[in-house]
């Protein structure tokens, strides 16, 4: 992202801020254990978990801040937080 003077930004530019860089722990999804309840998608404060055509839930690591709420709330314990190597 090239800087604009004074941080003036046209609409949509907040998507340029890849908040995934804030992450220390990343959620790892186990699709075998997942019951497809969708709780992770509902609870994600960043709105960055989507369901694929194959019905699997996947996070967008560009924006996932690693808060761990999805792992905490998953009724099947199918999401684990692992320290990320950067």
């Amino acid at each position: 992202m090239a800087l604009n003077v004074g941080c003036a930004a046209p609409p949509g530019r907040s998507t340029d801020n890849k908040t995934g860089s804030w992450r220390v722990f990343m959620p790892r999804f186990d699709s075998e254990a997942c019951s497809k309840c969708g709780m992770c998608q509902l609870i994600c404060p960043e709105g960055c978990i989507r369901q694929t055509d194959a019905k699997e839930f996947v996070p967008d690591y560009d924006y996932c801040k690693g808060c761990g709420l999805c792992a905490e709330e998953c009724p099947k314990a199918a999401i684990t937080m692992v320290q990320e190597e950067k």
Partner: protein
Amino acid sequence: MALEIMEGSIAVAQAVRRCRPQVVSAYPITPQTHIVEALAEIVANGELAADYITVESEFSALSACVGAVAAGSRAYSATTSQGLALMFEVCFNMAGMRLPIVMTIANRALGAPLSIWNDQQDSISLRDAGWLQFYAEDNQEAVDLHYIGYKVAEDHRVLLPTMVCFDGFILSHTYEPVNMLTQEEADAFLPPFVPKYRLDAASPVSMGMYATPEYYLEFRYETDQAQKRAIEVLREVGREFGERFGRDYSALVESYRMEDAETAIVAMGSICGTTKDAIDEMRAEGKKVGLVRLRCFRPFPSEDLKAALAGASRVAVLDKNIVLGAGGSTPRGAVALEVRDALYGSTTPVLDYVIGLGGRDVRIEDIKKVVALSEAGDGDRFYGLRTEVL
């Protein structure tokens, strides 16, 4: 151009009128009040086509100006002391958003204890906010720096807010002859403001958006670069002003009788007028004394200052502010810190004098005593400390 005798505050208000701000928002505070009173009258009389926004605080006054400049208007405000302190947050935002404005500071001490009298602690305390800071020696310069201030601030190489500082009461309430530009002259020098970005519903932008750790440092770099570019822009605009109107402001530091000077005084603001008179008397007595006056504190003209002080054996800095806690066991003012930084590596001693705080008069005799103290190597001290009341 006609020479008129008028109060400093009125002269500033008349100059501001000729700069044609479209929005004026300010909150009255001593000793700035006469400026904004006069402007209110000028607007009410239909002599300036501006929206005059009355607000409940200085925080709101400058915030209204942020919105006005963001929308593409030329804006104006004025304040001092506690009022400027209340603007602290807005000052940093305005510079970071790169919104140009000229705001007059009628310099006054900061409480506590409450003092309505002059020193330069208020604007000095906003040193790091990203604003350009000019200091006027007399009312003519205060007036001219408003035209120059807008032109430099609005230059797309700069785009930074600007404080034009002049000493409260000493200049703001003093009647002096002032050459006032005609409206035609002012218009020819200062064209309308052309914003880089502006708030426009047809083409929306957000300003001053948050920056993640990957970008924040770069925004600070950009603002610092704009400050550094302002040095050349100021020279250029100051020269143009001189070519048009005969008063040249291309020098960021003014050297007064510095030829063969052994003792160089460094100061800024109205104290320099007294200092020049003291120097004239000392020169008549054969003392080799000169003055290097800072017209501009931000950006700090380090290289110009270094060149101006090159021949001096010692430097005596008059600081009408104090950086509390700095300097180890001795007191230190902000100007001396900058002068020492500029002269780093040189063997020339820099002696600091914290002087004239809270309206304490500084007279010709005092300047002579400072010079005598500096010759004796006695510096980095308060000048005129009344130890009997301690």
